[in-house]
């Protein structure tokens, strides 16, 4: 039996984190859970601890990618075989987690993304986001030879073989830049169709500023990741 750790990055998610953790406990009894409290100021950390859940409290906000990396450090140190990222906003269905873990074995791959758009399901959301999704999806097709339809999904299962690479890289959101770097380094990245719910509490980490910042940073980090693979640095 594989040891799996569900990593839940949370920033100001006091309104939804309790429900999300309860859903995980119900859907996957016995699975290890780790909330990475990324400098929340709304009491997320104390709430998680009061629920008897394992909580990594980061003293101030360091961002989504570094928060995931902290969770992966924990998984690496404790010898987990699989880590699953699941957002704390209640949009992901924990019932999908066992499917993702099973898919890792079934396809013998290193990362499985829970995809809202796998198989060409239409993109949703505001126009700019749809265009962005499309562009980054084409980018994965060009760089990986396999199209990833949902590059921005926060629901992912990762095999331990990729932990070390992921904790040491420079990533913003673990999106396109991670998928392309993993693929260029020979790791196998696949998608599994899932469905998502609407956020009930709190605010998305993406603001109007992200409209410009996100694509620029992601493009640039993807370029950096590709250069890293093509021109490895001497250690």
């Amino acid at each position, binding site marked *: 039996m594989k040891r799996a750790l569900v990593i839940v990055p949370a920033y100001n998610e006091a309104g939804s984190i309790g429900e999300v953790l309860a859903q995980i406990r119900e859907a996957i009894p016995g699975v290890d859970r780790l909330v990475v409290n990324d400098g929340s100021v709304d009491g997320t950390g104390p709430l998680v601890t009061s629920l008897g859940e394992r909580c990594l409290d980061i003293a101030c906000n360091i961002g989504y990618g*570094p928060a995931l*990396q*902290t969770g992966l450090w924990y998984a690496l140190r404790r010898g987990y075989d699989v880590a699953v990222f699941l957002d704390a906003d209640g949009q992901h269905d924990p019932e999908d987690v066992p499917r993702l873990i099973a898919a890792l074995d079934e396809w013998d791959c290193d990362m499985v993304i829970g995809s809202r758009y796998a198989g060409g399901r239409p993109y949703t959301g505001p126009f700019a986001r749809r265009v962005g999704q499309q562009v980054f999806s084409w980018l994965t097709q060009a760089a990986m030879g396999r199209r990833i339809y949902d590059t921005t999904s926060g629901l992912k299962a990762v095999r331990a073989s990729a932990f070390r690479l992921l904790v*040491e890289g420079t990533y913003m959101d673990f999106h396109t830049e991670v998928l392309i770097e993993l693929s260029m380094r020979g790791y196998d990245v696949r998608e599994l169709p899932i469905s998502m719910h609407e956020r009930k509490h709190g605010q998305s980490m993406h603001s109007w500023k992200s409209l410009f910042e996100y694509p620029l940073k992601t493009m640039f980090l993807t370029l950096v990741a590709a250069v890293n693979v093509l021109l490895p640095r001497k250690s």
Partner: protein
Amino acid sequence: MDLQGILTIDVFGLVLFAVIVHLVRIQKLHVGYGILWLATTTAVMLIVSIPPLLHGITRAVGALFPASALSLLAFWFIFAILIFFSVKLTEISSRQTRLLQALALKELDARETAADGLAVPGADVDSGQT
């Protein structure tokens, strides 16, 4: 540049020299940055005080007037120093992130150790957080 201009810049340079030494002495400025600014101040004083050097630089950068050449040099210097400080800021920010990650992991280790009364398995694995 006439003698009055050269003297003005040299006096200003000497004052700056004294200020930099004082800032390093009272630990308001890192030694490395102190040396950088001393070197810059010295370079400006030398360029201005030795007319053949100033004219040579003016010709070398393709400027018509020495003042234009100095402005161009100043622009390049400011550009370079901004990149340098961006690198330093990034270093500090990355170190802060690593420290915060390490602290969070250590705190959780300590809590779990206290709760279990046992050594934390795998806690000695190199986390690269040092």
